[in-house]
């Protein structure tokens, strides 16, 4: 029973991170019709930048309290958003009129570049930021010890889901976003600045990925290859939930996380294989995913 | 016996009845025109007959057999072919390959991966004959994507014709080309179709062309048939004139 509670919390922790990555991927696809293969690497970039900032702050020795360290996380995510705001107009914009294969390939090239940039800047060793986890207490849940930090991450995941939903469905920019995703030409004819919508959508998607990396890095160190691993899992999430659907990203992230946690517990050898198989079966039975439309 | 017949064929899109309980009959060997304003249901009717859409109710009979449930593949094998309103070609294949492929498919040779397509003299000769009929033989080595609009319209018909269908549906074969080209295209099509004793159903807007070439004219309006008769009868039909107002109805 106690173990189960911990496992559920672990799943929720994992789902929060996955949701952030997958929602960004899905948002970018929904608005711009681009599958960004470098999305996982942007998540890794968020993890590295945040870990580095936290490391600097601690090395600065300004007696930095945990609260200040927490503020570094959105900064890490913002940095990734900035990278996205540079990538979209320079690398992606020239390709919208071309076949989607080219867009896929350019993002693959970007992935190769980003992976090596991270290796160049931060080297091959893992970059940790566990001071943040230690700054928070260990709490008792049904008699089991559990780091409070993980609860914070679950909270951030929930807030991010709500915030993104409110943003897309309750703000003026959200309306523009949805209009553009439905019909780019129509939106442009109605006087929307599609270029601005695209750059913002891409930056927001990158921000989500970066935030995912920022909140995961205190409990799991930033390592090379984490982005490439994460991307495939994010794919599974959006394939199960439906590419371009926010609700799908949320439900998909929960399904994948719970299956994965159960998998690690009961069938560790085929845990990943089961996930990919689920994605394959969903695509076979419901090609648009559980909540996809197009 | 009618070659093709639909019985109470109905297709709804939401509340809109695009095709409303239509009983359509095409006789062997005739050149029939299907006319009506935009949204009258002409293309939907052809889509239902060619299995690009499935009807909500009703039946499609071909040579007396019920083919309502038959797939695209089965209908083509049975002898129903069509061309498209917006030209549908294989743009990166040559003109000759476009037509050859129809013949390979018809002959069940398209599966063959151990012979050269160009090496099949029978198919090549037949494809050249078809291209000759449509006046496209000199263009055979061009890519289909590089043809002028009028030539593309003709090639589209030629590809469907090369399937040697019993009935050929042509969806606006002269749309998007100039007036002078229209007459030439229709002259060619009608000559080929009549010489090849193929039954043809043509969707057309230009009433001059319709009156000139058709054996019979069917007028559709709001998903149903408004009139069905010889060109001379349709020409004097007041109701038709009202509905097609704006279309060139001489006299």
């Amino acid at each position, binding site marked *: 029973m106690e173990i189960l509670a911990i496992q559920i919390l672990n799943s929720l922790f994992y789902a929060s991170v996955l949701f952030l990555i997958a929602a960004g991927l899905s948002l970018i696809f929904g608005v711009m019709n681009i599958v960004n293969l470098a999305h996982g690497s942007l998540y890794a970039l968020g993890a590295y930048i945040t870990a580095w900032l936290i490391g600097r702050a601690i090395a600065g020795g300004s007696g930095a309290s945990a609260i200040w360290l927490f503020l570094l996380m959105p900064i890490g995510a913002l940095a990734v958003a900035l990278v996205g705001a540079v990538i979209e107009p320079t690398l992606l914009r020239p390709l919208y009129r071309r076949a989607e294969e080219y867009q896929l390939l350019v993002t693959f090239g970007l992935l190769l570049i980003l992976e090596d940039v991270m290796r160049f800047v931060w080297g091959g060793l893992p970059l940790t930021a566990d001071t943040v986890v230690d700054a928070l207490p260990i709490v008792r849940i049904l008699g089991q010890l559990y780091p409070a930090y993980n609860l914070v991450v679950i909270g951030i995941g929930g807030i991010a889901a709500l915030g993104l939903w409110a943003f897309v469905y309750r703000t003026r920019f959200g309306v523009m976003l949805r209009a553009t995703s439905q019909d780019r030409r129509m939106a442009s004819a109605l006087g929307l600045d599609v270029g601005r919508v695209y750059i913002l959508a891409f930056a927001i998607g990158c921000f989500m990925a970066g935030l995912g990396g920022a909140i995961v890095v205190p409990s799991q160190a930033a390592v090379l290859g984490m982005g490439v691993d994460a991307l495939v899992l994010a794919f599974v999430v959006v394939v199960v939930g439906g590419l371009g659907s926010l609700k799908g990203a949320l439900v998909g992230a929960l399904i994948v996380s719970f299956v994965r946690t159960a998998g690690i517990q009961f069938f560790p050898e085929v845990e990943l294989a089961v996930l990919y198989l689920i994605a394959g079966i969903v695509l076979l039975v419901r090609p648009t995913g559980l909540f996809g439309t197009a | 016996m009618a070659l093709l017949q639909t019985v109470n064929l109905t297709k709804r899109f939401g509340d809109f009845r695009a095709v409303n309980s239509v009983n359509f009959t095409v006789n062997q060997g005739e050149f029939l025109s299907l006319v009506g304003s935009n949204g009258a249901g002409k293309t939907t009717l052809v889509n239902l007959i060619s299995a690009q859409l499935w009807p909500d109710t009703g039946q499609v009979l071909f040579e007396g057999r019920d083919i309502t449930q038959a797939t695209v593949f089965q209908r083509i094998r049975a002898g129903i072919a069509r061309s498209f309103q917006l030209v549908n070609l294989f743009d990166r294949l040559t003109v000759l390959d476009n037509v050859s*492929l129809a013949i390979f498919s018809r002959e069940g040779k398209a599966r063959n991966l151990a012979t050269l397509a160009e090496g099949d003299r029978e198919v090549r000769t037949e494809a050249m004959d078809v291209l000759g009929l449509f006046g496209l033989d000199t263009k055979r080595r061009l890519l289909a994507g590089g043809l002028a609009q009028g030539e593309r319209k003709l090639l589209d018909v030629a590809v469907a014709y090369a399937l040697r269908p019993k009935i050929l549906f042509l969806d606006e074969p002269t749309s998007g080309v100039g007036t002078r080209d229209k007459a030439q295209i229709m002259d060619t099509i009608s000559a080929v179709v009549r010489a090849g004793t193929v039954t043809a159903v043509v969707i057309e807007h230009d009433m001059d062309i319709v009156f000139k070439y058709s054996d019979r004219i069917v007028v559709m309006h709001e998903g149903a048939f408004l009139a069905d008769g010889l060109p001379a009868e349709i020409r004097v039909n007041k109701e038709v004139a009202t509905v097609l107002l704006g279309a060139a109805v001489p006299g």
Partner: protein
Amino acid sequence: MIALTGTPRPALPQLRLMGIAVPIAVLLALVPSFANSYQTLLLAYGLIIAIAGLGFNLLLGYTGLLSFGHSAYFGTGAYAVAFMAQDLGVRSMEAYILCGLALSAIVSAVFGFICVRHTRIFFGILTLALSQVLWSLALKLFWITGGSDGLRVPRPTLLGGMLTYTGGGFPRFISYYYYYVLVLFVVCVLVMWMIVHSPFGKALQAIRDNETRAAFLGLRVRRFRWVAFLISGVYTGLAGVLWVPLNGLTTPDILYWPFSGEIVFLTLLGGFRNFTGPIVGGIVFTFLKTYAVATTEYWQILLGVVLVVLVLVLPTGIVGALAQLIGRLWPQRAD
């Protein structure tokens, strides 16, 4: 005289092929006599990767389907060899090839059956997801696959031992194996050339250009795509089989999806709209990657930049660009 004014008959396609292929094959056959064994080794790798590229391009260039999961078939071929060597003690290269082909045919038939229900981006993601099933199995079932350490594969016997390289050491093995690969490469090129010029190949191109119209010619689109997928997978599987003895080791890396990305990359590098594109791409990519890896620790950046520049500036690849250049320098008389 009138007969002469008619349009000249084009040279038979077989003659055109032979005119280009024979000199190149002869040139390739002469390589070991003037190149050292390291360069020969690289070229052997290049030819093997070119076989994978040829297979991959039957899908991308001729059928219009972008697979991001061809690592699955390459890996299937490679692991088939490793299992036979380790668990059955088989040493015969011919047996490796037969079993590798059979196994990759089975895997690509099953995966293809699922994937061809989709096109475009969904096809790509589905191929990727399925390939990762195999990758995760290779990684996790370490008592069978050796996990991330992979499996070692000893040098096989060639032609049932008729080609003995013992005593000659590595250089002799390389030069024999190079010819072995070269012969298979030539066969693969000829067969693929036949396929894309066959009625079947034309049908694939028709499906690529216009799926709806192809269906209205009575072509069973999905079935054609499936067969193309199968052939493509078998080619890539053969490349995997040939690759292992050269590498001496197979690891899950060749099943991981970035390796699929490399196959896409090399095909684009050569040019996916040309028959020879993936061949040129495979060889150039192998040399490019080898030198990049040898020159800098950060070779991925180099490859990434090349890829991005390629997409933005040179989307038709090396062969496409050369063809355009030649077309501009010596414009053909239109007939």
